[in-house]
């Protein structure tokens, strides 16, 4: 059973994502700010990180940079879940190592779960 961490500062969106992903059979950890998220990634093992960009304390771009700079942590795939949909943000995130970029407003929670499932299947992570 794959273990995911969701780093998202909006409490309602976080709770819905967590619930839907748990229903889909994933192990879920949550963080409501960048600092907490980064600490948890460093101290626990995750198969996938779901990362918002606009976050209190440390933003998503900084987190991507930190993960990329660590030999172990850079192996963990990161999918961005953000409401920034401009080309600059998307390009920057992909350049910093994010595997996929999902704009929350354009998707229902169910659609996001499907995208995550298909990504993990593609990567051979279960």
């Amino acid at each position, binding site marked *: 059973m794959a273990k995911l961490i969701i780093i998202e*500062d*909006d409490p*309602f*969106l976080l709770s819905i994502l967590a619930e839907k992903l748990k229903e889909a059979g994933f192990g879920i950890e949550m963080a409501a700010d960048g600092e907490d998220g980064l600490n948890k990634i460093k101290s626990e093992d995750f198969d996938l990180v779901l990362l918002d960009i606009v*976050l209190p*304390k440390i933003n998503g771009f900084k987190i991507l940079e930190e993960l990329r700079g660590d030999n172990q942590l850079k192996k963990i795939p990161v999918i961005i879940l953000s409401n920034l949909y*401009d080309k600059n*943000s998307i390009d920057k995130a992909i350049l910093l190592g994010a595997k996929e970029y999902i704009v929350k*407003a354009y998707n*229902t929670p169910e659609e996001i779960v499907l995208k995550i499932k298909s990504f993990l299947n593609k990567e051979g992570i279960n």
Partner: protein
Amino acid sequence: MSKQEEDDSLLRERQKEIVENIMEGLVAHTVDGRILIVNEAAEKFLNARFAEIKGKKIGEIDNPSQLLRAVFTPMEDRKELAFSFKDGLGQELFYQIIQVPLSQERGEILKIIRDVSRAKYLDRMKNEYITMMSHKILTPLTNIKWAAGILSGDNLDEQKKQGSVKNITDNANKLIEFTSHLLNIAEIEEGLFGYKFEKVDMAELAEEIIKNYRQEAFQRGIKILIDDPKKNFYFVRGDKNRLGSAMANYIDNAVKYSLDGGQIEASLHQDKYTVWFSVKDGGVGVSPESAGYLFTKFFRDKRAKAVHTEGTGAGLFIVKNIIEKHGGKAGYDPIKTGGSLFYFTLPTYKEEK
């Protein structure tokens, strides 16, 4: 000199002055690239003196700047070509170069150079602004969309239902508030912000405004006190709604950025000419480097962002505008022990003859 010759000479003088004084850079050269004319603006852009490059081709010039090289790249007539470079300080500069044929028989060509860095900068600011605004709108909308999804699903217990409905309402209100901020700003820019002046009792108004925040404050254990709420005492001439908005903005900020269990103190003072209203809190405070920018449009201090990523930052700008329209001043004082004091002053009410 005959009259005709005098006129011609004067005309040539004028044309020379025009060429020398316009903002655009002008470089005239032969078909095979020999430089004929370089005006003052071009000298500045190209970082070269006319005297030194006159009569030379690009290949014969020592250390030509990137822009000078760009001037001699092959291009089509009357088609703007864009070039950008980083200068010595790492700043990005943007130029447009346009080729215009001069004399066919003499085989001469004109290059017009425009510095469009400022236009580019403003364009980028506009795009960043649009991106920022879109994000502020999309987040509440995502909440509404997902909450509606929950309501239309199965497994709906009462708690989930209530939570979702509240979420939709709260976020719709956020969007309404944000939209009205945006409109306020647009109106301020157009000077359309209409005011209706009357005699206003500041203590009464303050109490009315604070009442709206009592419940939220209570839920977080925050006390709102008002120092010297003497009615019938502090009078100003003002637009009651607008002054109420200004007070509400200060109280709202104090509540939002206060820590749970903290205390907020509103006060009123006056002397012969001035009424002073302030709101003090013991919350996150404002970082010192930001203090000067607080009342500017859409600025948000990093400490505020760390607590509350989605504030609009539009409020203080509107407060400043309102207070200045009343002949007063709005400002901020940091508190040494942590927290903020936001105040505004207004002229005391004077009976009109």
